[in-house]
């Protein structure tokens, strides 16, 4: 660019005073000179003013000409970059800086490491220093970085009329509030806060409570998980939290609990569970050592999905089932409980007696593994259930082995939201301070909180609101008289405790993007401080909790302490009779086809707080595979009996006469016509409230329980969260906490339909050997069972020097070669880099490492964290509901969910499951995460005419975005269908404007884009439209590690990246470590060891594409004594009946014979 110096225009004084001019231009610009010129050359005057018509035409002609000539080089706007003129301390351009922090929550903080590029947090990962999680994260943690850059977050605090107010004014409001109420001891001052585990906040809250003794501090979480603690506290008389150790357990019963997915501590629990579930080889398989999970539940949760035996019961029946179970366990274990109490329990458990055998056998198994078994009750179940479960765990000898009772620090005393609602009615509230949360939206329906708040405001009550989303994006903030803008946890100081009590920091790594206050700042001012210093507060808390430890080290490592101490309290059985007496009157409500039960579960957006997060909205629910919506989920049986309109063809999602997709079912209203699930709308009435929502049939639910995810249907939310789903909170009731189920509901279909965006339309695996499963006994007997499945097991030997090798073996054992084409073997460096061919070059660049991945289906729980982690790492855009309905979602990893059903007969010959082509009522479910398999002989590569997808030296199937012109041929030819195409400029257009093309608004030009762009990972290109993309094994991480290693190696020549250094985002996030990545050419690498398992197989191995990602088969551990025992997993049964060898065991026999038969032919 040409340097242009603009002189300031001459001032008036200069014009009137003595005339000096610095240039002729300047002289020419003076009014006097211009006047003179106009008089002297009237025709030329216009030259000075600008362009005349002729000149204009000349210039335009020239520029059109040049534009035509130069169009070939016209690519994008020229933008200028300014380099650092001086290196900033600790910032190396292009090298990310990592900070340890933690994501705060109501019951636990999740320790994280945050990757920042040029001081922008871009990616959140679990903190591996916290051994209990070892770097695991969940979808909410992964996606929380996007909330930081939410264009709809509050950007300023505001007063009553919504006008912005400055931080100083906010301080004034807070100080005035403090001084006003300090005089009266806080009479009429009410706080409604979210629950928090932060010791610093607890400290300040106590200070506030001391300053305003008469003020009411209430805490509310719509999805409250503290009932186990409340129960344990009630039984033991002190604040105690039951902490499970599934790594030590072999038999576990879950009672309507989702401890593997939605409940706090699930990351550690998943890890422990996976540890007990993991098997290396068939020889190690032992049903006694491997954990066996029983689940009793109404919803189909991930915990239920991973259970070996699953009993579908309405949530209202869980109490009965628990009582029956208690009777069985107490009588079988000889715990010394009185016969009277046992009889009373049996009486209470009458409602569940239809499943008495299931419960009795389960109890027998739990008792038989005394000390290694545990019972987990759902966190939302009533306190009584938890009390009984605690006694049972004690009877099973779980306490001290598979379960410890952790002594929790006392939390500040808190009232409930119901108390506040009552006070609002009574008129005793003068000022209501709402800290975080969103009670206007998510308070239980029967509290009528929103209405009471409106009445309170009408009566001139003052509402002060501290929150992250402002008036336009939050129901509660909208009601505020004074709104105080909050900060994201990545911008503020704080601390927290992990699920098991380690102290973790919350530290800022970016200056607040907007003027806001940290939670600690606001509370500190209220507690009487004149200035705020959150850092000092956190520092003080740290010092008092961890005397003698270094604060800096804590910030650097991100975790310290020893965890909660195990409580010495013992559970005594003396309480049993009182408990029995107190609970004898609990009635089990009628649940049948006219009295439905509604079960509320947290949706993927939590209780609605993450509603404005596009990654989460587009993240498919692991079980239902719905995105961008919730629905009323009904069981197939209910649909068949009560709502046949949902199944006009008899069986929705069913298969036709030949075991295929039935064209008739395709045509049905409720089915996936044109790729969209067209759902009927229903009205549900319970507790006198009625709501409407689309109905979707979900196999595996309790027959008369309808499940509704909470957290949708926000009325005031940001751009993303608005018009998503429907709100189910009006149906809910408050019983200490929000009651998770409601009985006595009625449902009727409305004559209306609604389109749902479902990313997986087909539930059945069609008997194909895609996910290979076996029961542990079968696996023990036939360790090579995976090799005896699918087409490859049936294929005769073909040609080539390895003709006798089975395609299965070829697919997994020999990565390359044996092809007609001369593909270069792994040991030869790339021929086009001359330096590599010299001896010195070979020394500097030895044989590249060969990357591969192993995914253990046995420990994959289906949590979907990998999907969101990948999205965060690789700048994967969201596409919106409309495009998801067209199947154009961009996730590089998808999590396939298959239901399997099949005829299962109980020991007495009764049908447990019915025919395979029915819509299954009680299916087994399997998950499989599928990303690019990085095939050695990749079918996508040879069909691309532009050579945009190629193999590299280290076995990666790479994608050159710049070369891609978008024929989509590669995606067609990909057998795994893992390639994603940019049908539109996802990044350039707002969702909803895709079809407007150049007429739509360019999102890059908007302020919102400025914000969201900051999240993008600079190491990964942002793809434009017309380009294919797919999983790269996180090639940017591989390259970074290689560069690091080369720098480190210097002259040693040891440029091999050590095993475990590189973790793709998915593997990093996986709580169960079921994704293992590494060098497959190194026999000692973790991935090679994983792949050496006899369960290792390649999906579609017969295609001879030789994928680098292989899977380890899933092993189930069923109990033969159970009434629903199936000797083989149902998907395996279906495979064997459709495609397998007809006589049992023949597949294994033929697998043994294959080499022999091959040599003969």
């Amino acid at each position, binding site marked *: 660019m040409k340097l242009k110096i603009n002189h300031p225009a001459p001032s008036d004084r200069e014009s009137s005073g003595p005339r000096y001019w610095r240039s002729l231009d300047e002289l020419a610009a003076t009014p006097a000179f211009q006047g003179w010129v106009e008089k002297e050359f009237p025709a030329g005057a216009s030259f000075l003013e600008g362009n005349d018509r002729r000149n204009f035409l000349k210039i335009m002609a020239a520029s059109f000409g040049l534009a035509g000539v130069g169009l070939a080089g016209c690519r994008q706007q020229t933008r200028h970059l300014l380099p650092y003129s001086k290196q900033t301390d600790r910032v190396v351009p292009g090298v990310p800086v990592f900070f340890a922090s933690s994501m705060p929550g109501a019951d636990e903080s999740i320790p994280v490491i945050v990757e920042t590029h040029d001081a922008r947090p871009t990616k959140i990962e679990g903190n591996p220093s916290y051994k209990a999680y070892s770097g695991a994260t969940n979808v909410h943690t992964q996606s929380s970085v996007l909330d930081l850059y939410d264009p709809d977050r509050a950007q300023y605090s505001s007063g009553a009329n919504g006008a912005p107010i400055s931080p100083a004014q906010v301080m004034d409001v807070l100080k005035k509030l403090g001084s006003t109420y300090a005089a009266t001891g806080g009479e009429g001052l009410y706080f409604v806060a979210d629950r928090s585990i932060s010791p610093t906040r607890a400290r300040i809250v106590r200070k506030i409570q001391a300053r305003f003794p008469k003020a009411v501090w209430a805490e509310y979480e719509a999805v409250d998980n503290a009932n186990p603690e409340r129960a344990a506290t009630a039984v033991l008389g002190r604040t105690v939290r039951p902490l499970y150790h599934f790594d030590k357990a072999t038999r576990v019963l879950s009672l309507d609990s989702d401890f593997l997915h939605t409940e706090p501590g699930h990351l550690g629990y998943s890890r422990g569970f996976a540890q007990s579930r993991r098997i290396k080889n068939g020889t190690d398989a032992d049903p006694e050592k491997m954990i066996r999970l029983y689940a009793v539940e109404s919803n189909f949760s991930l915990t239920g999905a991973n259970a070996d035996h699953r009993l579908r019961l309405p949530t209202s029946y869980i109490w009965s089932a628990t009582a029956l179970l208690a009777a069985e366990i107490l009588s079988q274990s000889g715990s010394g409980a009185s016969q009277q109490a046992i009889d009373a329990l049996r009486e209470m458990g009458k409602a569940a007696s239809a499943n008495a055998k299931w419960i009795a056998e389960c109890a027998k198994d739990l008792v038989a593994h005394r000390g290694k078994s545990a019972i987990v009750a759902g966190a939302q179940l009533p306190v009584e259930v938890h009390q009984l479960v605690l006694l049972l765990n004690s009877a099973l000898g779980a306490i001290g082995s598979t379960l410890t009772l952790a002594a929790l620090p006392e939390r500040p005393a808190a009232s409930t939201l119901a108390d506040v609602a009552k006070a609002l009615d009574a008129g005793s509230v003068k000022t209501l301070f709402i800290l975080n949360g969103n009670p206007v939206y998510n308070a239980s329906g029967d509290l009528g909180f929103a209405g009471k708040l409106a009445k309170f405001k009408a009566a001139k009550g003052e509402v002060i609101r501290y929150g992250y989303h402002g008036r336009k994006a939050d129901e509660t903030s909208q009601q505020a008289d004074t709104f105080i803008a909050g900060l994201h946890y990545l911008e503020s100081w704080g601390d927290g405790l992990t699920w098991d009590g380690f102290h973790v920091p919350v530290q800022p790594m970016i200056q607040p993007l907007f003027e806001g206050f940290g939670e600690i700042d606001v509370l500190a001012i209220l507690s009487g401080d004149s200035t705020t210093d959150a850092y000092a507060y956190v520092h003080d808390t740290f010092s008092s909790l961890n005397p003698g430890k270094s604060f800096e080290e804590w910030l650097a490592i991100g975790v310290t302490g020893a965890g909660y101490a195990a409580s010495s309290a013992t559970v005594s059985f003396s309480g049993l009779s009182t408990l029995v007496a107190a609970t004898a009157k609990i009635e089990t409500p009628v649940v049948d086809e006219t009295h439905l039960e509604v079960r509320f579960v947290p949706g993927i957006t939590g209780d609605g707080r993450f509603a404005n997060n596009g990654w989460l909205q587009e993240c498919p629910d692991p079980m239902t595979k719905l995105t961008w919506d919730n629905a009323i989920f009904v069981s197939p049986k209910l649909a068949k009996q009560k709502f046949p309109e949902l199944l006009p063809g008899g069986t929705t999602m069913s298969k*036709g*006469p*030949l075991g*295929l*997709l039935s*064209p008739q079912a395709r045509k049905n209203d409720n089915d996936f*016509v*044109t*790729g969209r699930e067209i759902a009927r709308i229903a009205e549900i009435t319970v507790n006198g409230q009625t709501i409407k929502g689309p109905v979707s049939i979900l196999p595996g639910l309790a027959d008369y329980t309808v499940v509704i995810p909470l957290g949708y249907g926000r009325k005031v939310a940001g751009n993303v969260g608005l018009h998503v789903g429907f709100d189910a909170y009006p149906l809910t009731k408050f019983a200490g906490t929000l009651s998770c189920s409601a009985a006595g509901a009625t449902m009727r279909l409305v004559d209306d339909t609604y389109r749902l965006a479902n990313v*997986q*339309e*087909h539930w059945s*695996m*069609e008997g*194909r050997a*895609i996910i290979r499963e076996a029961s542990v006994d079968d696996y023990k007997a036939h360790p090579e069972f995976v090799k005896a499945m699918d087409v490859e097991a*049936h294929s005769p030997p073909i040609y080539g020097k390895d003709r006798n090798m089975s395609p299965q073996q070829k697919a997994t054992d020999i990565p390359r070669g044996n092809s007609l084409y001369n593909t270069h073997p792994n040991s030869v460096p790339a021929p086009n880099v001359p330096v590599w061919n010299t001896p010195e070059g070979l020394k500097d660049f030895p044989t590249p490492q060969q990357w591969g991945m192993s995914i253990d289906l046995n420990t994959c729980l289906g949590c979907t964290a990998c999907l969101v982690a990948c999205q965060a790492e690789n700048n994967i855009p969201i596409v919106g509901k409309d495009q998801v309905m*067209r*199947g*154009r979602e961009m996730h590089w990893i*998808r999590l*396939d*969910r*298959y239901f399997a059903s099949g005829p299962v007969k109980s020991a007495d010959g009764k049908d447990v499951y019915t025919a395979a082509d029915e819509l299954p009522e009680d299916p087994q479910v399997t998950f499989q995460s*599928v990303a690019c398999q990085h095939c050695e002989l990749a079918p996508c590569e*040879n*069909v*691309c*005419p*532009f*050579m945009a997808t190629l193999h590299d030296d280290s076995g990666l199937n790479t994608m050159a975005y*710049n*070369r891609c*012109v*978008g*024929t*989509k*041929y590669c*995606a*067609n*030819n990909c*057998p795994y*269908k893992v390639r*994603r*195409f*940019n*049908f*539109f*400029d996802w990044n350039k257009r707002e969702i909803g404007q*895709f*079809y*407007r*093309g150049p007429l739509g608004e360019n999102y890059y030009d908007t302020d919102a884009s400025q914000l969201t762009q900051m999240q993008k990972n600079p190491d990964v290109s942002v793809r*434009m*439209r*017309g380009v294919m993309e797919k999983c790269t094994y996180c090639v940017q991480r591989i390259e970074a590690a290689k560069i690091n290693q080369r720098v480190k190696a210097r002259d040693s020549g040891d440029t091999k990246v050590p095993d475990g250094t590189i973790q793709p985002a998915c593997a990093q996030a996986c709580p169960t470590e079921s994704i293992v990545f590494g060098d497959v050419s190194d026999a000692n690498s973790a991935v090679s060891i994983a792949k050496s398992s006899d369960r290792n197989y390649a999906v*579609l191995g017969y295609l001879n*594409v030789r994928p680098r990602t292989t899977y380890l088969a899933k092993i189930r551990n069923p109990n033969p004594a159970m009434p629903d025992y199936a000797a083989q997993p149902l998907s395996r049964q279906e495979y064997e009946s*459709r*495609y397998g060898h007809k006589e049992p065991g023949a597949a294994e026999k033929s697998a043994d014979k294959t080499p022999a038969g091959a040599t003969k032919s």
Partner: protein
Amino acid sequence: MAHANDDSLRDRPAILAKVQPLTTLPRKPLVLNNREFHWITEKICRIVEDPAPTWWWVCFLVSASISIFLGIGLLWLVSTGVGVWGLRPPTFWGWDIVNFVWWIGIGHAGTLISAILCLLRQKWRTAINRSAEAMTIFAVMCAGIFPLFHVGRIWLAWWLFPIPISEATWPNFHSPLEWDVFAVSTYFTVSVLFWYMGMIPDLGTLRDRAVKTWRKYFYGILAMGWRNSVRHWNNYEMAYLILAGLSTPLVLSVHTVVSFDFAAGIIPGWHTTIFPPYFVAGAIFSGFGMVLTLVLPLRTMFKLHDLITQHHIDCMCKIILATGSMVGYAYAMEFYIAWYGGNIYEGFTFINRAFGQYGWAYWIMISCNVISPQLFWFRKVRENTALVFIIMLFVNCGMWFERFVIIVTSLANDFLPSSWGYYSPSIVDIFTFFGTMGFFSTLFLLFVRFLPMLPIAEVKHVTPAADPHYHPEPDTAYAAAPAAVGAGKGGRR
């Protein structure tokens, strides 16, 4: 020639001498009513020279309006993104490639008629070869639009050509799509050459007859100085033969290469070795279908019954019957191999084709392609022009569905059931396809107006008068034909 001479009598089987039939079985005349040369010249040139009939204007305006859809559809596509089409994973190719293969298939008949039938000395080809070649060229143009515009970044599509570019990389010669580029562009080039070169003597005729100056120049330039000299004729005939020889393998290669797009893929339903012959048979089938669809109305409108005779229609119907049966055999064979191969994925694909979610498309294909041509076994059907025209519409429709069935059903339900989906086109897909029909008919109507629709010189070649040994015999066996008069009177112009 059509008439028996002494040589052929000498080669007669001995049995004929014994039974002594009353007459030799004559060949069917290719020009009825013993039309003389001058009549032929007049008939064909008048189409170009007379003012355009009203129906032509109506058709032209309608076609041109329809072709606007093509422009708008492509403009929207390029400015907005491929997402405006209905493509949805796993069906990354939908109507775009269906239309491409359909149009390319249609483009087969022209070269087959002009090259293969020429080499095989099928003289009946002369009446239809010009319009068939024109049809070929326009069909290939329509076909080319789709693969060109279906790419995500069309402004880079020139990378398909092996020219040095900044990335210093070549296109991938392993890719069947790359083969398509060469196959289709070669085919198009040779077809245009062939068509144009064959037209040169006729353009000379038009030039010589031209009255208006612009016509003199227009046809004068196009005729490239054709002077009707013997040397010209000699060169012309040699070149024609060479081009016919060159085009013959192209007829087979183009659709073979197009079929490789699928056969080289590994998707069940695509990955079959039967595709090349099956596609070529299908292409000829659909090409002849389209020729008849175009020629029958033109024959009626321009009253060309003497030049395009029932015999021509009969021949084409028979070819359609033959190729339709071949296609039917291929359909059956695919099923058999799917069963015989024992591959569960392959087996599923085929049963799903017939009975799955796209079963309706499959049965449309079967009834149009396999069942409807079987009517041509009956002479009555072949002689009923209206019925032939209707069956041709079925054939065109059926062949479109064949491509739809192959491409879409294979992709929509492939290996992993989790990614299965149901593809349906968007309004843009539909209008763009509709637009290509308008584009095609516009070009064809212009061709009819401005270029000799039938090859004047070649038609004259096949009249009895062109035979140097021809002597009109009063006792000729053609019952319908009056005594031929004025042999050589018209002469070649």
